[in-house]
């Protein structure tokens, strides 16, 4: 086959990123990776 004019696009950038990897790369440091605590919970913690 001739080479395609435009290359395929990988939405994951070729990496199998889980929720926690995505958040870590985004610089988030949430409780258990993806949980937001409110003020009350933070105080308890």
């Amino acid at each position: 086959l001739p080479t395609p004019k435009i290359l395929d696009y990988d939405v994951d950038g070729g990496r199998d990123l889980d929720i926690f990897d995505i958040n870590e790369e985004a610089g988030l440091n949430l409780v258990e990776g993806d949980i937001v605590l409110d003020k009350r919970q933070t105080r308890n913690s």
Partner: protein
Amino acid sequence: IIGDEYRWPTMIPYYMEDDLEINAKGVILKAFEQYRLKSCIDFKPWSGEANYISIFKGSGCFSSVGNRHVGKQRLSIGTNCDRIATIEHEFLHALGFWHEQSRADRDDYVKIMWDRISEGKEHNFNTYDDTTSSSLGVPYDYGSMMHYSKNAFRNGTEPTIVTKIPAFSDVIGQRMEFSDSDLLKLHRLYNCTQGSTFLDSCDFERENICGMVQGQGDKADWVRVAKAAGGPDTDYSNLGKCTGSGYFMHFSTGTANTGDTALLESRLLYPIRGYQCLQFFYYNSAGASDTLKIYVREYDKANPNGKLRFIKTIDGSPQELWQLHHVSLDAKTKFRVVFEGTKVGSGSSAGGLSLDDINLSETTCPEFIWRVKNFSHVMDNTPANTAIYSPPFTSKEGYTFQMKLYPNGTEGYPGELSAYANLVAREGDTGQKWPCPWKQMTMMLMDQNPHIQKRMSNQRSVTTDPNMKASGSDQFFWDDPRKVGVEVTDVDGSKYFRGPGYGTAVYLTHLRAKSRDFIKGGDAIFLLTMEDVSHLTESQPLPPSQPPSHPPTTTPHLPTATTDMCNHVECENGGICVVDEGEPTCRCMVGEDYWYYGDRCQYVGTLWDKTVLALASSLSVLGVMVVITIVSVCCVRMRYKKRSKSHSMIMENMHA
């Protein structure tokens, strides 16, 4: 999370912020459909309720746990979070679920390798004791979509979580669909008795055949059998693997007379939405002209005994294969589904018509089916970076697309299924708008479990953005394939143009693809759809005449009074500027237990502050009163002491 105050109503109000990606919005709606199908949890656009979930595009995927009663409760679906299982996972948090491995009994089932965890991330492996978190009587679930994967928060290459049963090592961390236990817990927490859009499922394993009945006025019957003369030799639910089970319904055209019909009618069903999808497996070993027709028998006041309405004839010549079929229904009153088999031909054929694994739900049907035969063999024997293609399918709007599957991954990803969607055009195609605007293509590898609510199908969706440019090029990615694609020759010799692919190299691992019922009878079934999602480019309407207690954060949603007077007034903390008696004024955001105030809404007050203030005032008054009392007492005492001193006399010689 323990506590009734954390529960949402079963109908959850949501607001999709403008900043969400269009693909994410489409996938969120698909996730809602799974909740509706598999639980009693339903979602509705926010119409002014005090508490609602605001879904926005933050820098990641995150949520709070349970209903926090804060009015606008935020849930982020950021970049790369637009996968159905990720969205379902975040909504399970919002509904009140912690992660599976933070259960109190976690250490009985997995071993946390503390020395392999990145420094400072150890807190992510805390557990909650059973006064905070309840497992609702459901056993620890390695297959939960709320479980971390084995490499979560690792500092090197070794897993941080080792399952005590090694077979589950690669099971943990699945992000495909709800597991049975996820659903059981959800049902227990919210007292669900059935799925909102689920109607019926039948694999004919029980003798009562799910309450189905033989129709009135027919001359022949459907029979529940484990095998039929002329085929099939096994059912589809179990494929004959289990002795004493594996039944299906069969109408023998071999023994019937020409013109005989056999009606098989479902039990009575009560629709809510007014549209349904009927899905079933069909084995046709009858004569070429014998037919299977689908009807609905609808009941209303004028037809208390029901009235038959023809829906469609099932196409397909006889094949030695259980074929998957979908039929869209539109019943709006009480109804039954009717399968009508007819022996039309006069020739003798040994076989007949067979049905198995019937599912009926109030959902839309998938549009296209791509069956890949002998799929395990295909996965194991296709070289890496070699693709196979589905046939081109044309959507209702006239766009044609196909799925490109790398059965052994693309370069660098062996052991994976890689999946891409490609637009297709033929020479002479007309009527489409290019670049293709906002079509969402979904590629689902079907888990062929007989029961639709127990399926954990794997799906990914991609959406055509007409403004997207190809990397390093001025061309639009989703432009006419005749312009940006390559010409290819189909198996039948016809030629067409295929545009570039858009998808993922990590669609599903081989290990997962070989699990559950993704491959059944050797075959895999991909369900493909292309839906128009251009309506999702519009903002979700705000509740009418309701000043939002928590206005959306993105400006297009704000119901601001856009007069010049407000142009120079900046309200903080989500406040909005309105013109009041000719003056620009900030109206501040108010929650149930907090509020903003000040001329720019720059201060925050909370119930806690109010309580502290009241307590402090009371204590101060008390303190002042005590001081005054003490001073008064002292003064009085001193005064009396002085007086008694001045009036004192010395009595001498009293008895003299």
